[in-house]
């Protein structure tokens, strides 16, 4: 059977990346709910669900490999294929980070991993991160570079939340001891990295479409 034509493969690649981002958003959304409400079963579901994202990544790599092999794309098409390969790595990592959040919930259960006063900040980090992943999904599907540029700004909110969380931890009056501080430190880091990868997905898309890094564009 001859391979599908390149344009069709490129659409499929975008579609797969979009699905990966949506799946990662869903995973972190559930992991955050599990974290805030100490729901162990939900956490277990997130851990088990990570496989789906890994499988999608394998599909991206296979399809991208076929595209390179059968069509030897050049210029913009080549960029699209290579950026799909790279992006799939970022989104798989987003899935891993959602899984890490879920693992902390599981490890601490039935105790809540978070003390009550930092929960609102984590609810917010979860919201920002999930929103970023959904936007990245849309960028991947639509190749909208203007929308892609928004993610950089959206990520600033995450950086502020992350910095604030570090200040709370470093405050001498932190009453919850070292173990909780270690958990909170790592959890905050997972959300921050998740958001970073979503931004990279958008940047990769800009690069694939325009051949330039986003910073070079007047948007």
């Amino acid at each position, binding site marked *: 059977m001859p391979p599908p034509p390149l344009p069709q493969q490129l659409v499929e690649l975008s579609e797969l990346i979009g699905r990966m981002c949506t799946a990662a958003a869903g995973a972190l959304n559930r992991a955050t709910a599990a974290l805030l409400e100490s729901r162990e079963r939900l956490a277990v579901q997130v851990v088990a669900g990570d496989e789906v994202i890994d499988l999608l990544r394998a599909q991206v*790599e296979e399809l*991208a*490999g076929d595209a*390179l*092999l059968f069509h*030897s*794309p*050049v*210029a913009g098409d*080549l*960029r699209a294929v*290579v950026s799909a*390969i*790279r992006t799939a*790595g970022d989104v798989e990592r987003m899935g*891993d980070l959602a899984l890490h959040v879920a693992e902390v919930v599981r490890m601490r259960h039935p105790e809540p991993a978070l003390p009550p006063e930092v929960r609102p900040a984590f609810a917010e980090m979860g919201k920002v991160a999930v929103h970023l992943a959904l936007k990245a999904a849309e960028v991947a599907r639509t190749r909208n570079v203007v929308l892609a540029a928004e993610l950089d700004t959206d990520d600033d909110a995450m950086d502020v939340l992350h910095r604030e969380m*570090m200040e709370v*931890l*470093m405050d*001498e009056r*932190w009453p919850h*001891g*070292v*173990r909780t*501080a*270690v958990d909170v*430190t*790592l959890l905050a*880091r997972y959300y921050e990295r998740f958001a970073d990868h979503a931004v990279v997905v958008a940047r990769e898309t800009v690069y694939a479409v325009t051949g330039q890094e986003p910073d070079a564009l007047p948007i």
Partner: protein
Amino acid sequence: MRDVYQEQLDELAGALACMCTQVADAMRKATRALLEVDLQLAEEVISEDVRVDEIRASAEEKAFALLALQAPVATDLRIVVSAIHGAGDIERMGDLALHVAQAARRRHPHPVLPAEVAPYFAEMGKVGVELALKAGNVIRTRDLARAAELEKDDDAMDDLHRHMFTVLMDRNWSHGVGPAVDITLLARFYERYADHAVAVARRIVYVVTGQMPGPLTV
């Protein structure tokens, strides 16, 4: 024509191996800056990170040129795709060394590490640097036995990482929360650095055998 092609593939591998040497050097210096509270050395690591980024950019250009002009197939295609992945991993290793240096700079003139955990970080640094150098070696030689060694070295890193947490969680931990937060993040940087080195070696195994070794535990 074939010779130019082979030369291009070698150059690509050379660029990646060179990145490995760079990030090994960065981690060696960053660890020393951390242990010896050396601000100047920390600054050096921070300003030199652009070099890694530059080599990555040139490696990617080489990879693109190969794909566009030579349309490689089979093993050669796997080499180029693996190089694209590898370049990303190694660049990230550079970033993680940079994070270590930034931590040293942020707390200067105070040491980040209490004296009793310093030896663990010296060891994590050593294992990390070793992993980066071995990854570079595997890229050059495609030596599968060497690639398998990285997995063992990474186990040593995981043990150190786990042990670090035991120390932090111990009742006798007397340094409070602030240093514990710093140490948590630093230990994570070393662990991730090692994971990326292993990922690079695994890609080489894939290039040679056509199969990925078992899943990487993260």
